[in-house]
């Protein structure tokens, strides 16, 4: 039995050990960027390997869930972090960012993410959330030459603190109402209560706290500023990993509450509709590409919330499938943006992208494919993922919500198109020094590129993985 416990937390240990050794490296061998990168790469890869080879065990070890569902998000989040790490390498090297801080903190963020998605107890959930948030504050503000990055870091910090306090307050009420802090039983007990005096505020406060984290409208206002200010590869991590971790936790919460109180259902319905609509409509009028992508990621959270609301086997399948696709496409979009950015300032204005398709063909191709996937056009995974999401919502009896979602997804194509048009069809400087993509970025880009297409053309494999992850829970 003891053996199983160690095996189950092996990925966590590897990440924590990796982070500590990276920090130590900084203390004893300062400036050795290659070494710290190799160390963090090794600990992430080993963590992935450890998670992939150990069989899933139904149930929990201590306060951590070790079921197949946890495993899915564990692997997905680690893969996303690995992608972000690879995309960061060149970016950090060119801008002389301190590798020790950057990579070590990234590993801690990864640890926080898998803790959030795998927690079966509110305590682990909260501690992991704080670990993730603290790491992200550092990562966002890591470019000391950029005032915008500082601003973004502070903004995220203030918002994060407020969100955490909401969450803690909600958890306190939850404990008062149910007397337990184990996630599934406490939520089930809360939902079963006839008297809503305690349970409704508890639900709403927890919802608000998490809403901040995954930037649901109306808790979304920090998102564009932070995404714009943070370095592009960090934004990639921010948009994918930190949100997917919370989505993974949300799947667990919705799973624990099969029959939701009507009032809560109505609130969630409104949140989903508002997030999809406002996210997409606001993205439409953005002049800056990073802000536009930020609003697009807000809208995508709305789609996922819609499918969570639909629930049931189909809804959760759709959410898990879309999580994987979403992680890849936002990583691809922000990552390629980081690869193409000049040293002093990240690409942001639409004009910056003019004729970039000719100067940086490979990175631009990935950005294009990621945008097509975000727009949900075939033959990419984005189309099939959206197909699943909307079908689930229709089937579960939310035709209006699905209709709103479809319509807003239609609108969204207009703003994604602007970037692609700018890169390929607008006049601009077509020749210039060809910048070769580094090996790390190149590997990440090609894998993302292939996977995005593969999940769209042959979705059966990922679908079967997702179904297995849900069936063994």
């Amino acid at each position, binding site marked *: 039995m003891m053996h199983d416990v160690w095996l189950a937390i092996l990925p966590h240990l590897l990440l924590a050990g990796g982070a500590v050794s990276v920090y130590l490296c900084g203390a004893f061998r300062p400036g050795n960027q290659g070494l710290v990168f190799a160390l963090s790469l090794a600990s992430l890869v080993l963590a992935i390997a450890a998670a992939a080879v150990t069989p899933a065990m139904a149930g929990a070890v201590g306060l951590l869930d070790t079921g197949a569902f946890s495993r899915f998000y564990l692997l997905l989040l680690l893969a996303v972090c690995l992608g972000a790490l690879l995309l960061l390498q060149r970016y950090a090297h060119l801008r002389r960012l301190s590798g020790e801080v950057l990579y070590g903190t990234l590993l801690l963020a990864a640890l926080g993410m898998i803790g959030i998605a795998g927690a079966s107890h509110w305590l682990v959930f909260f501690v992991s959330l704080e670990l993730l948030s603290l790491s992200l504050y550092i990562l966002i503000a890591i470019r000391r030459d950029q005032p915008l990055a500082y601003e973004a870091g502070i903004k995220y910090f203030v918002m994060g603190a407020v969100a955490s306090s909401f969450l803690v307050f909600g958890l306190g009420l939850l404990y008062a109402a149910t007397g337990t802090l184990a996630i599934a039983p406490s939520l089930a007990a809360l939902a079963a209560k006839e008297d809503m005096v305690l349970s409704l505020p508890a639900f709403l406060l927890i919802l608000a706290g998490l809403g901040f984290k995954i930037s649901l409208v109306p808790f979304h206002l920090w998102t564009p500023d932070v995404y714009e200010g943070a370095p592009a590869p960090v934004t990639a991590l921010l948009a994918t990993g930190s949100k997917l971790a919370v989505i993974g936790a949300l799947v667990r919460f919705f799973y624990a509450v099969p029959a939701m109180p009507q009032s809560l259902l109505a609130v969630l319905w409104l949140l989903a509709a508002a997030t999809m609509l406002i996210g997409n409509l606001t993205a439409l009028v953005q002049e800056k590409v990073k802000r536009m992508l930020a609003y697009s990621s807000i809208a995508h959270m709305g789609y996922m919330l819609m499918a969570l609301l639909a629930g049931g086997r189909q809804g959760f399948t759709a959410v898990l499938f879309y999580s994987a696709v979403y992680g890849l496409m936002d990583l691809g979009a922000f990552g390629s943006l980081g690869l193409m950015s000049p040293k002093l300032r990240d690409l942001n204005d639409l004009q910056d992208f003019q004729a970039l398709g000719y100067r940086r063909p490979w990175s631009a191709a990935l950005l294009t494919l990621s945008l097509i996937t975000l727009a949900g056009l075939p033959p990419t995974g984005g189309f099939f993922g959206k197909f699943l999401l909307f079908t689930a919502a229709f089937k579960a009896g939310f035709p209006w919500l699905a209709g709103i979602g479809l319509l807003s997804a239609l609108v969204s194509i207009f703003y994604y198109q602007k970037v692609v048009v700018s890169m390929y*069809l607008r006049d601009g400087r077509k020749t210039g020094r060809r910048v070769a993509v580094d090996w790390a970025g190149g590997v990440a880009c090609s894998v993302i590129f292939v996977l995005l297409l593969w999940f769209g053309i042959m979705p*059966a494999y990922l679908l079967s993985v997702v179904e297995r992850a849900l069936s063994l829970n």
Partner: protein
Amino acid sequence: MQALPLLSIMLFLPLCGAPLALILPSRPGFSRALTLVVSGAVLLLAIALLLFYGGENGGALARLTEEARWIPQLGISYRLRLDGISLLLVLLTSLLIFLCVPVSRRSVKQGQAVFHCALLLLESSVIGVFLADDLFLFYLFWELQLLPIFLIIGRWGHEHRLYAAVKFLLFSLAGSFFILAALISLFLLHGRQSGDYTLAFAALRQTAIDPGLANLLFLGLTAGFAVKIPIFPLHTWLPDAHTEAPTAGSVILAGLLLKTGAYGLLRFAVPLFPQAAAANTTLLLVLGLIGLYYASWIAMAQTDMKRLVAYSSIGHMGLVVIGIAVQTRTGLAGAVLQMLNHGITTAALFILVGMLDERFHTRSLEKIGGLWQQIPVFSGFFLFFALSAAGLPGLNNFVSEMLILLPIFATRPLVAGLGLAAMLLTLVYLLRLVRQTLFGPVRSTMQPVDLSLRETCILLPLALLVLFLGLYPGPVLGLLMS
């Protein structure tokens, strides 16, 4: 089931060729030759299928059906089938894409590798639309068409190309939205009824739907397809897209993409909801007639030749809609034949206008005249195709127009009468086009050269097809009537 998956080969050959076209960007000749070879091979394969399986009125075509597991979790399978209608449309597709290569020899100078890659992608997706027998597969190819044509218009088009390309994209996507919503509803309705969630066309046809809902879904699907056909009032993207597109883009739009819209209507929307289609016959007839008259009326006022031909496209497609709406066997055969004819004739007219544009750098009717004296061979072709578009007896359009309109006289004489009268209008604006450009005084100071061998070779097969379909439509009709 065949030993050799011929349909898949035909479908994926261009798709495999597309990335290959990109590998030598500095040697444009390579991508051109590759595209020529690949599309030529597809054309030959399509002709071979016609010769070997097209006999006995296409009865043997059913043997070519292919099926494979794809996404079993959602009842989606890879399913292709070929019948007379799709065979003819595939032939048209491969012929026109093949011709697009020499057509763009002069007009496309930059980024030829990407251009040919887009051309091949487009070929695969259009063929996919015509072959798919699973609605998911169909939708996938349907959407896939958009990106290459968007690129072709936006990159190699004329002055306002971006505006036209984006407008085209938005209209098409709005149409796709309706199609997707209708498909998802149908998928869920069928699944709830039979417990078998599938997107196979044959199974979905069996769904029993409440008439009100069926009507809604039919209108949704039709609205989606109507954007592409285009049916009035969803046509406004077309003149812009056609005018701004390079010649190859116009040829593809008119010859292929409009056909996919009409094909979707007659292959999917009508058979899936036959009662709803019957209930909406009048609506479709009226819209078709409006399209016919409205387009002719506007065409009369055009001075840009490309715009004029584009409006004539709307008119001709209005006739196709009428043929589909009446739902008789002759009407349907006429509609498909009209699609083919329109594809051939309009493509030829766009090619001819493109050649004029290369010579005079203008497409204005007011600046070109008296061509008959300057370039007689060109003028001969121009007159020939214009007369074909006007429905001169003995040429192709006459046959299909009569097939569509004559049977309606028995049931709806008013519609048939109005349709025939519209033919006169068509004649008016086409004769105006011919009179302005070919006859009268020479208006331009330039000294154009007559058709080169390459240009003649492009036009000759189209002209022969016009004659063949006009004089001896029997075998083709045999394929369509079965």
